[in-house]
């Protein structure tokens, strides 16, 4: 793949690739076919794609870009939804539709950071614990269990309370409570893989632990990892929004959904639409990632999915 020799014309090259990797193509087609059979998986895919698209281009398509970071337009404060302001305006006269759309990007990086960092910490620990076993496993798993022994939101709340409120601290706190899930997942998988015949064979032939981990253990962990990560994107966004709602996460005027609901709550019940719109976006995002993850599991890891 890394050859830089003169590239043949695109047509034949693709044809050659298709011949050389026929198995891979067949598998991909099969995955796509299984995935597309489930309406709920497709709905999830559509919601996730819409979310990613809004996160990518949101700031350029919103009607009032200057409202995203909090402008002051007191002349049009707290207006009900209208054709000019689909979701109404907030107490500073900012367009709520604009802020919700731009909030997509905030949520995207929040979800990506928490999930990414948690996997980055959890996967190596889980692989080491499951593959090497013994004392290393007991130590890693006991520490993991301690973190899993208290509901994540409560522990995150305690951490943010001592670090001080703010979006970065919220993300940090949620990462600290999120990695143990990955250790558990990968450890269980690695534990079953280490006694597989091909791993034993590799070891007999003198392969190093590093080589076996790279070539046998980790590649086999990818399916459950992808499934968990896609579900966690949604759950992490929800958790961060929860912190924002309590008043310990993102601070207004940062366009974050949970914080918007938190401020909007003080304008209940007369200006109820203020809180309604950001909540709907959280719901659709989390729903999308959950359905998408469910569909992925049925496709990639059918044995572990029930029902």
């Amino acid at each position, binding site marked *: 793949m890394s050859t830089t020799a003169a590239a043949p014309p695109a047509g034949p090259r693709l044809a050659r690739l298709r011949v050389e990797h026929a198995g891979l193509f067949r598998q991909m087609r099969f995955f796509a076919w299984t995935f597309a059979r489930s309406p709920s998986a497709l709905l999830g895919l559509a919601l996730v794609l819409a979310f990613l698209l809004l996160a990518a281009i949101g700031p350029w398509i919103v009607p009032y870009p200057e409202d995203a970071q909090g402008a002051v337009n007191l002349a049009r404060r707290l207006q009900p939804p209208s054709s000019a302001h689909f979701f109404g305006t907030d107490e500073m006269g900012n367009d709520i539709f604009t802020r919700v759309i731009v909030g997509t990007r905030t949520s995207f990086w929040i979800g990506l950071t928490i999930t990414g960092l948690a996997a980055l910490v959890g996967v190596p620990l889980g692989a080491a614990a499951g593959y090497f076993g013994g004392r290393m496993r007991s130590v890693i798993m006991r520490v993991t269990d301690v973190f899993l022994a208290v509901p994540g939101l409560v522990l995150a709340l305690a951490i943010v309370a001592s670090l001080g409120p703010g979006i970065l601290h919220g993300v940090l706190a949620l990462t600290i409570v999120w990695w143990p899930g990955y250790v558990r997942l990968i450890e269980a998988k690695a534990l079953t893989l280490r006694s597989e015949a091909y791993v034993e064979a590799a070891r007999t032939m003198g392969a190093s632990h590093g080589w076996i981990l790279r070539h046998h253990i980790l590649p086999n962990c990818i399916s459950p990892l992808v499934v968990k990560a896609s579900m966690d994107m949604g759950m992490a966004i929800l958790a961060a929004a929860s912190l924002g709602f309590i008043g310990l996460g993102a601070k207004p005027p940062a366009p974050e959904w949970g914080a918007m609901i938190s401020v909007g*709550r003080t304008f209940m019940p007369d200006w109820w639409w203020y809180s309604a719109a950001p909540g709907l976006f959280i719901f659709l995002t989390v729903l999308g990632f959950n359905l998408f993850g469910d569909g992925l599991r049925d496709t990639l890891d059918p044995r572990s999915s029930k029902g």
Partner: protein
Amino acid sequence: MLRYLARRIAYVALMLAGLVLITFVISNVTPADPAALAAGPDATPEMVATMRREYGLDRPLPEQFLRYVGDLLQGRLGRSIQSGNEVMDDLSRYVPASLQLVLLAMGFACAVGVPLGILSAVRRHSLLDHGIRVLAVSGVALPAFWIALLLQLVLAVWMGWLPTGGQLSIAADPPPVITGMVLFDALLAGQWAIVGDAAAHSVLPAFVLSLPCLASVLRVNRAEMIEVLGSDHITAARAHGVVPRRVVGRLALKNAMLPTLAMIGLRFGWMLGSTVLVETVFDWPGIGLYAVNSAIASDFKPVMGVTLTIGLIFMLANLLVDLAYGWLDPRTRSA
């Protein structure tokens, strides 16, 4: 069984020690100076220094940790800056209120989740099944605080069917304290008017709290029922002409209930955690609201107290599930 029991209890003790260490570390990484916070906003540097000596904050960390553990063993969680009370006293008032919500929510989740799971499994791939599964996924994806606000808006503010928040009407006299849970205390005292009032106040928060649990109970029960219904002994029972109602209700449900019960036990602690959101919306005087108000005011002692309490209850609930499992299914004892 005794050895199994001893091992599980030792394990819980170890986890608890770990959690104590975590809360100690969290309280000590704080950028804010606890002594300055305790001394108040207009304290002089000398007062802060006195405070620091008094709380032992000038001692080396290991010594502070030992002191912390010693205090915990005596049930001393420190004093709340906000309320001025011992955290332990505050907790003994707030924990029952939260437990009442969690118990009601759990009861509701089982009462609705189990039958829906069975229905979904028996009518697999029907429109009903799809509808129920959509409900289940939505239950997990709905932001609790948002649906709480909407229900409060529609049912309490607009329709006026239910109270907007709190545990009892202001005019109502609280019943004599027996369990600390207002609803059950009123029941025990036979004060029916108060029972009605307390129940009306509990409906919305308990319902919102139950949604994620309801969703998982439903999912697990459905999956287990499908698996059990496909197993050989069920096929054999059917072939012998056992009526379908009996097959589903007696034979299959019995086997499917074990994982469902385990799920319910695991969810117990999680629900205590979710009270943080639900109680904030409904102004419910429980540990969730206590933790949030204290956290916002940088009042750490109560936050750590709540964390430890929820952690302890969570571990005990898990222990009970483990023991019940080990008792019902001896194969799991070696794990």
